[in-house]
């Protein structure tokens, strides 16, 4: 009994293959679309700002005079923010993911925390700004120092890190865990030696996206209140500060007062993008080195 008519199949096959080939190019175009926009954006920013990047600009202090202004203070501010954000989000994020995926057996509690996290991931950054202002700046009386900003940004990106880490843990095949438990390994040993190494690349992907976001985030910092003019460099996480995106924000806003500020903003964007690029490259190198299909 033949159900498949070979001639029909043959005929259809050509359309199927053509469809596949055409869509392949559409998919490629879709991928490239984003890159084209990015190229235009970067081109505009570069042509506007590249002429203003020089050593004085990079290492100089902030100034209201466009000819003198430098962004070392903002670079250091961003640096100290990351010193707070990176360890906190990685430790708490991966910890929470491990707890939810591997320790919490009670489905109700698990699903409660999970719902809570995915909801937090959707809470707009400006709301975190209000939270940070109320809790860190005012209630704990930190003032608008790096620590307050860093903690606020940490809370903001934590859900992203948690969700990505969970996905990565889930992608580790169950039979690897079985093999480890079968050797008499304890839960923590299995996590540390099998699950974490296998899941780390996926965790890094999520963390990269999260940190990129934290570095470029403006809205919560505006709510926390970053001085528009602060000249001394921050020397630690307890100092007041400005950060690169804040500087871009202020300069773009004030470009209607001083035209050159728009160029300074463009130059600062270049620096910020470069910073993100370096950070991403390092992390992606790590990720590619370990990525594995089972």
């Amino acid at each position, binding site marked *: 009994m033949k159900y498949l008519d070979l001639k029909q199949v043959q005929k259809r096959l050509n359309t199927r293959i053509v469809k596949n080939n055409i869509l392949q190019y559409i998919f490629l175009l879709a991928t490239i679309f984003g890159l084209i926009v990015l190229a235009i954006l970067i081109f505009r920013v570069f042509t506007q700002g590249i002429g203003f990047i020089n050593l004085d600009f990079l290492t100089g202090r902030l100034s209201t005079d466009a000819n003198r202004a430098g962004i070392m203070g903002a670079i250091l501010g961003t640096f100290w923010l990351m010193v707070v954000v990176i360890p906190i989000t990685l430790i708490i994020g991966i910890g929470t993911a491990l707890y*939810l995926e591997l320790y919490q057996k009670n489905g109700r509690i698990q699903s409660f925390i999970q719902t809570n996290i995915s909801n937090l991931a959707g809470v707009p950054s400006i709301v975190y700004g209000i939270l940070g202002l109320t809790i860190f700046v005012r209630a704990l009386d930190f003032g608008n120092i790096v620590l307050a900003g860093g903690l606020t940004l940490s809370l903001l990106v934590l859900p992203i890190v948690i969700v990505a880490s969970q996905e990565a843990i889930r992608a580790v095949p169950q039979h690897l865990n079985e093999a480890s438990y079968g050797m008499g390994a304890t839960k923590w040993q299995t996590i540390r030696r099998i699950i974490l190494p296998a899941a780390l690349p996926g965790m890094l992907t999520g963390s990269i*996206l999260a940190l990129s976001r934290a570095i470029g985030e403006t809205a919560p910092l505006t709510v926390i209140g970053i001085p528009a003019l602060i000249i001394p460099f921050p020397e630690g996480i307890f100092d007041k500060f400005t950060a690169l*995106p804040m500087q871009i924000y202020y300069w773009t806003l004030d470009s209607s007062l001083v035209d050159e500020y728009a160029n300074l903003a463009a130059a600062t964007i270049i620096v910020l993008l470069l910073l993100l690029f370096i950070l991403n490259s390092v992390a992606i190198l790590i990720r590619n080195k370990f990525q594995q299909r089972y």
Partner: protein
Amino acid sequence: MTTNSESNQNTVPVREMIEEKKKSRNLSSVTEKLVPTILFLFAMISILTTIGIIWTLFSETVEFFKRVSMTEFFTGTELNPLSQNPDFGILPLLNGTIMSSVIAMLVAGPIGIMAAIYLSEYASDRVRRVLKPMLEVLAGVPTIVYGFFAFTFVTPIIRSIWPEVGATNILSPGIVMGIMIIPMIASLSEDAMSSVPNSIREGAFALGATRLESTFKVVIPAALSGIIASFILGISRAIGETMIVTIASGSSKNFTFDLTQSMQTMTAYIVEVAGGEAPAGSTIYFSLYAVAMTLFVFTLIMNLLARYVSRKFREEY
């Protein structure tokens, strides 16, 4: 440790060594008990965050509703917080938020998923390793940059094609927001699709399936929960996006479905009020919290809905 002669099978008395070590393994049993507790505390931080947000927003929102009735707030189509006879209807803001998010997702959804398909199913390893990080750069561009990009580049282009579009409008920031969200959807969907085991793809190819067929009929269904999760994050990002809309859509509080018009989103309203001259204790100051609370509840409801959907489609392999 003494090594026995060749003839003896047990050159290393592993079993004895393990017994030996076990006695000193009380430490590790402490670890085993301590770890869950520590991890539990970590997990509690996200709960505390939510409590913190609700507590912060709620107390001020209550104050607001003492002055403005819920009915007016939720059904009013007029928002003139500073005029002599202020109106506090949130509908214009809700409308602006929904419009911009829908436009953004119409851009980011299809393009993001297509990019994910390309990267996961069609691109060679080499190409993927180059393209994916490049795409991720898009997500790292500060939103303030996108805002001025929308206002000074995209809007003029749109206006040259479609002259009715205003200098400030919801269409342009919506599109740019979509572009910003593409990498988030592409990257996370690609991760979900990549973790579908290769053996399953092989099964499809062995039946004569084209890549397209194996992708749409096997890989995507298998990765659906991850893909939906990426959409949720994308939508949340669109709803919460502040700077782009603030700059490119202006601050008119229009209640309309006309894409060509300026509209204000909830987030932009918060920025406007928070950075403005509203004295603490005034109704408009409290309205900031009421809008923030609405925004919060809005994302809560949407996430619960999306979670329900994603769980329904979850596949095990």
